[in-house]
């Protein structure tokens, strides 16, 4: 029997080994991609084999499973191109660090988070362009996150809990620390944005589950206020965007803020929180892969307004994009809806106004996501566009996202969490909620 303390090292080691194993294939993009996907799948298998032996964190084991799934999706959805080679290996590297952060205990967990955030800040710096001066804010946000993560590993309470919360606010974006999220999703190349949108929020939630029960009331109220501002701000900004990646970044910010509000109200992060964060991240990741399909065909700087009529020319793409959009805007029977409803029914409402804003943010997603999808898929076919439906890898990638989101919306929550973990301890929330309590 393997020692439980070794399992985080094993879980992290497999994708890291994969990144190293990919090095010999650097000259052959196709082989490199195949190898990276294979290692991501092996990583998923290792999680399935060993995750049950580690101490279950308060948010459950779902994040551990979702990380390799997201990596597989992000890798599969990329076109075979030499420009993406580094991003594939970095995806495996980030997967390893993410798995380590989620499965190990404090303070090693914080140290791996420091490394993760510093690496992303470094990547943003590397891809910084003078045309995008605002990306300094993103680099700064991740720098701050890395610093806070290091301090939370070294310092004692109460400083450690404050710095830990700040790290979470950078990872799981909360206004005003959301610049890193926006910059990473819009500036990083290849498969990185579609993986990071799942990885960092889940890592943030892991930290939040440990930090939020200990924060003082005043901090919880402040977080609650920021969350409501973030939910409305994200929704409003998403409505105004014409660039798809920015729209998705703001949209996901709005949904993550909803999670912050519920977490601040209930002072805990349960597996239902993980379900919401994971599925929002996964749906956004899927939409990013779908957008990548368009960029592959019509160029990196394609204007979404110039594309229309894909439903007739690319029917498979149209069906999968529509389903992904439904999932991303929080409609049943997909996981985002299940996570949102789970929190709505199991968390207390500190205020009716807060509930109203939360519901408005949920509603706003119908506008901006549906508008984007309708613009792309419907309307007249453009004679100047060549319509090529999904290739096998792209199809597989999008299909996996849709199926996982569907499964997470329908399967019993107890599959990935025990009853006690689902709702916290009875003392935390008084009476245990159920469909008919």
């Amino acid at each position, binding site marked *: 029997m393997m020692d439980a303390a070794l399992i985080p090292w094993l879980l992290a080691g497999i994708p890291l080994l994969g990144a190293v194993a990919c090095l010999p294939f650097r000259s052959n993009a196709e082989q490199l991609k195949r190898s990276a996907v294979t290692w991501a799948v092996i990583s998923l298998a290792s999680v399935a084999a060993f995750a049950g032996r580690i101490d279950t964190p308060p948010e459950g084991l779902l994040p551990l499973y979702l990380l390799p799934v997201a990596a597989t999706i992000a890798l599969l959805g990329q076109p075979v191109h030499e420009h993406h080679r580094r991003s594939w290996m970095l995806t495996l590297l980030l997967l390893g660090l993410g798995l380590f952060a989620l499965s190990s205990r404090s303070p090693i967990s914080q140290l791996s988070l420091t490394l993760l955030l510093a690496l992303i800040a470094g990547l943003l710096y590397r891809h910084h362009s003078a045309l995008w001066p605002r990306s300094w804010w993103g680099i700064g946000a991740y720098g701050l996150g890395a610093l806070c993560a290091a301090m939370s590993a070294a310092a004692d309470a109460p400083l450690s809990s404050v710095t830990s919360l700040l790290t979470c606010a950078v990872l799981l974006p909360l206004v005003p620390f959301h610049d890193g999220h926006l910059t990473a999703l819009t500036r990083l190349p290849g498969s990185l944005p579609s993986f990071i949108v799942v990885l960092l929020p889940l890592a943030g939630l892991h930290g939040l589950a440990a930090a939020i029960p200990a924060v003082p009331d005043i901090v919880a109220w402040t977080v609650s206020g920021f969350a409501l501002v973030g939910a409305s701000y994200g929704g409003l900004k998403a409505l105004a965007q014409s660039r798809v990646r920015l729209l998705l970044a703001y949209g996901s910010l709005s949904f993550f803020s909803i999670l912050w509000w519920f977490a601040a109200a209930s002072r805990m992060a349960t597996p239902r929180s993980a379900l919401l964060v994971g599925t929002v991240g996964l749906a956004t990741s899927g939409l990013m892969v779908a957008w990548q399909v368009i960029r592959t065909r019509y160029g990196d700087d394609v204007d979404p307004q110039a594309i229309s009529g894909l439903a007739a020319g690319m029917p498979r793409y149209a069906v999968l994009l529509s389903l992904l959009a439904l999932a991303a805007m929080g409609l*049943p029977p997909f996981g985002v809806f299940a996570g949102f409803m789970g929190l709505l029914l199991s968390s207390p409402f500190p205020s009716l106004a807060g509930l109203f804003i939360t519901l408005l943010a949920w509603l706003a997603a*119908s506008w901006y996501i549906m508008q984007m999808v309708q613009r792309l898929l419907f309307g007249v*076919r453009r004679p100047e566009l060549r319509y090529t439906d999904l290739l096998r890898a792209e199809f597989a990638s999008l299909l996996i996202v849709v199926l996982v989101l569907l499964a997470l919306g329908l399967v019993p929550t107890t599959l990935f969490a025990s009853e006690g973990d689902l709702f916290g301890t009875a003392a935390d929330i008084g009476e245990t909620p159920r469909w008919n309590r």
Partner: protein
Amino acid sequence: MTLVLLVPLLLLAAACIVLVGRRGSEYARMKLAAYPVGAAFLGAAATLYHVTTEGPVSIRFYDLSSVASFAIPFGFYVDRLSAVMMTLITGVSVIIYTYSTGYMYQDRHARRYLAMICLTDFVLICMVSSANLMMLFLFWQILSYLLYVLAHNHAHEGTLVGAFKTFTILRVADTAFLAGIALAYHLYGTLEFQELFIRASNTPVMLSLWPGMEMSGATAVTLLFFVGAMGKSAQFPIHLWLPGSLFAPTPVHALLHAGIINAGGFLINRLAPLFGLSSTTLHVAFLIGTLTAILGASMMLAQNDIKKTLGFSTIGQMGYMIMECGLGAFSLAVFHLIAHGLFKATVFLNCGNVIHNARLEPHFPHVDDQTEEPGLSRLTWFTGFVTTLFIPLLILLITHGVLRIPLLESQGTVIFLFFIWITSSQAILTLTRLRQVASWKVSTAMLMTLLFIVFVYLFAVESFTEFLYPNPEEVASYFKVADLPDWLFDLMIVTATILTVVSWSYLYMSAHGMTVRMPAWIDGLRIRLYLPFMNRLYADELYALTGQTIMRLVHQLDKRERGWSR
């Protein structure tokens, strides 16, 4: 038990048969899928018989006593209301599906379209037989999206705008519904229908919206549910999606107007015991329903397109239905929606023929003989008198003496009787004005038909009420809760009487060449009102303006903030 599950499964199977199969066999598969749709109807009818004789059927795929529930707790609860709705939906589906196979023949999207029709029927059946609010909401939401897809034509700009409007407006109402579910769960701790009703009536809760303003929990919850119902049933002012979706294929309208739009009425009926706890919500429903009925009917009169005319007619009818709910006559609303559904499905399926004939015949519709008789005969006056005075008295006699409905204690029934009176008076006034009642044959046929319809309707409604709500005390309690303030009730009765009497007096005076002094503004009112009603009260423009204003504000905000975040 298996029978109940078989009904939705057969519809799902029909969708699969249409969708899946080798190329070239599409038409055969479309024809084949009609059999499971027909079998679903037979299953629904058998379920109705079973439920009537044996009582409600309950199937749950989740454990009530355990927290380890499904994300969506799937289960079926089929009582008489559900079984009636299932029979109606599957019955209409059989007709629409059979019609559609011919209507969409050789259309290249026929396969997708027919599969969507079957899928919509499946969702509708699951919705009306849901065991709890969560499952009902799940299918309610899917229905909103299916409506968007069904009202869609990829390449037509107007349809795209209409479909988007349909989706977004329905989402607004769905959000209120969701808020209602969350609030109900937090107040009463359950989403199971029967348990919810018991807890809501046993534990009255007061909510403080802000200092000094309190509202009962039942009122808050039912108001939110009511907004949800308003969306699906196209109630003013969120009725805009219905005229906007009129570009869809004609059979879709038949399904929409005969089945989907009834979802609001069904929801209120399903939650009748909860609505019966809040007179405020019922009064709001009465107000909204009346307003929708009046505006819908008025707009219908001013439309010059057959589909729009029928669309606004549906809005008006849905207004009546909600008004009936607002008066506490929940079973009457169900009866109304069944009657309206069957009628409107027939009319919609036939409207294509009318358009076709109109295109073939340059003088269609025929111009009536413009020569008018100089005056009205005694026979005409006699018919009018019998219709407006004798028949109402007879109805009063029957309702009070034969059906034993306590009129003095039931405001709702009196309002309905006056409603019948004013409606039949309006009909007979129109006929009289058009000189259509000029022979004994016509007069007798009309009176007999009217009597027959009214009596059959009264007896049918009474029997249906007993069938749906076997406990008369429950029915009486709903009427009691829905009682309007006395002054409002008196005002309505007096206004209805005055309107009828004044109309007859005006007609009599005009017919006898007497001078009727009418202020100029009243004469001009009809013309002035025609334009706004023809333009649907400019509601679409207002909606577009609101959307543009919001988007302008959002873009302004985005520009101001751009420097900070990007």
